[in-house]
């Protein structure tokens, strides 16, 4: 398989405003994703998961290292991947429906057609009946789903999802996971998912990167060789638990 995203020896540091010191967040990271692969990224808070996604999306630049994305030749990756950020970032002056089609609006797509696409997904995203509400009139979970819908509608080959389901209850979360898997299979997407939920990571992924908070190049790779399609009950399976046992000590360190 060809890597669709290939990152070599990537480092990133930020200048700490209080102490004026340079803190290194990502240390010589190697990372890749194959075409059509579902990869999860887990790790403790503050280890740099969102920073890595920002860099992949093109919002931020690394200090050192290489990023190659096979479909994208130019240096400007912005707008060429579907990226759902950790915050919902909905525009307070637009309705749920208008927020969800913002990406299509930016691409100057026909408004009627875009709305049609969004309306078809409202039910699945648990937003039907709320399309004309404004972001501050709906719950955090609904805002997250609206933001997820906005990302999905941009319809790119590669999806970067930063904790897309963190504000959802477990039933809704499980529905959204199933729907995401369906989308992934049907359209052969390549998905990178950041999550704090180990079960979610194992259930969805082909491979899991575990990031750690220490000062070395410390991305551990876990291969999830569970057959697909996977059912909910798989979490009780020995093979599942074995993988979980592999991950847990990495997280705790």
């Amino acid at each position: 398989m060809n890597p669709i995203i290939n990152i070599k020896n990537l480092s990133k540091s930020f200048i700490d405003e209080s102490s004026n010191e340079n803190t290194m967040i990502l240390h010589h990271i190697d990372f890749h994703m194959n075409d059509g692969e579902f990869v999860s990224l887990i790790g403790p808070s503050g280890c740099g998961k969102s920073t890595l996604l920002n860099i992949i999306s093109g919002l931020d630049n690394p200090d050192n290292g290489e990023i190659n994305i096979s479909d994208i030749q130019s240096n400007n990756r912005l707008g060429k991947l579907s990226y759902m950020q950790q915050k919902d970032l909905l525009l307070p002056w637009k309705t749920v429906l208008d927020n969800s089609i913002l990406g299509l609006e930016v691409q100057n797509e026909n408004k009627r057609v875009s709305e049609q696409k969004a309306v078809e997904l409202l039910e699945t995203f648990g937003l039907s009946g709320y399309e004309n509400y404004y972001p501050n009139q709906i719950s955090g979970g609904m805002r997250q789903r609206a933001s997820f819908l906005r990302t999905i509608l941009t319809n790119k080959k590669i999806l970067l999802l930063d904790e897309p389901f963190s504000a959802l209850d477990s039933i809704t979360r499980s529905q959204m996971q199933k729907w995401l898997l369906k989308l992934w299979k049907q359209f052969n997407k390549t998905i990178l998912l950041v999550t704090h939920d180990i079960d979610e990571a194992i259930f969805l992924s082909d491979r899991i990167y575990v990031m750690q908070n220490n000062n070395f190049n410390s991305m551990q790779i876990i291969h999830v060789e569970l057959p697909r399609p996977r059912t909910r009950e798989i979490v009780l399976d020995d093979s599942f638990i074995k993988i979980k046992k592999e991950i847990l000590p990495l997280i705790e360190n």
Partner: protein
Amino acid sequence: MQNTIKKINTKLKTVFVQWFPAVILIFSLLVIWEISCRLADVPKWLLPVPTDIIVELYEHWNLLLGHSFVTLYEILIGFSFSIISGILIGGLIVYSKTLEKAIYPIIISSQTIPIIAIAPILLVWFGYGLLPKILVVGLIAFFPIAVNTIDGLKSIDDDLVNMMKTLGANKSQIFKKIQIPNSLPYIFTGLRIGMAASVIGAVISEWVGSSEGLGYLMIRSKPQFLTERVFAAIFLLSIIGFLLFLLVNYCEKKIVYWRTLSE
């Protein structure tokens, strides 16, 4: 039907509750003013009592109303000019770095010139007509509107801009879809300040030289010892100010609708 009546009722109630303390206070002050002036036998030319002012308003209503309309007209025309030019120039300054360098320092430093002070010069140049008044009103309201427009366009949430970039938005799309809506609450702050200033601008430019308007009426009535007429003019000016304030607030509620949303 019953529901709408109920809704109107609760709305009236909230309006009543909101305004009631202010109304009571003003009314009490008026009563104290009336009684104490009458007890102390203050002459009318020195300080008329509220009832004198009411009688004056009633007896010379047409005269007062005529002059009020002149002043209102100056304010509305001048204020409209300042809205258009303030927002336009503010927008241009933020959109173009070159224009910012050229114009922004001038705008900031010219804020230190008391616009009122140039009213006599405008009188020399443009005579006693409406034009110098409209210019003073326009200029005096222009600065707060322009400065707040610039502030609003600049104070954008970087996260929202980044989000737009991840969607592939270019500079003008970000300007249109993020910066403009974001600036609206700031612009209304500018409008409120500009509006208050424009009433002052209109009156003072009438004082400097004019043949009509409430400011003119005040200047003319004072030497005639028609103090109650001066007070009536002040009253009408504050009514004009109050109505314009309500108008600006109403427009703000309609245009910046997302700020006042509720479940």
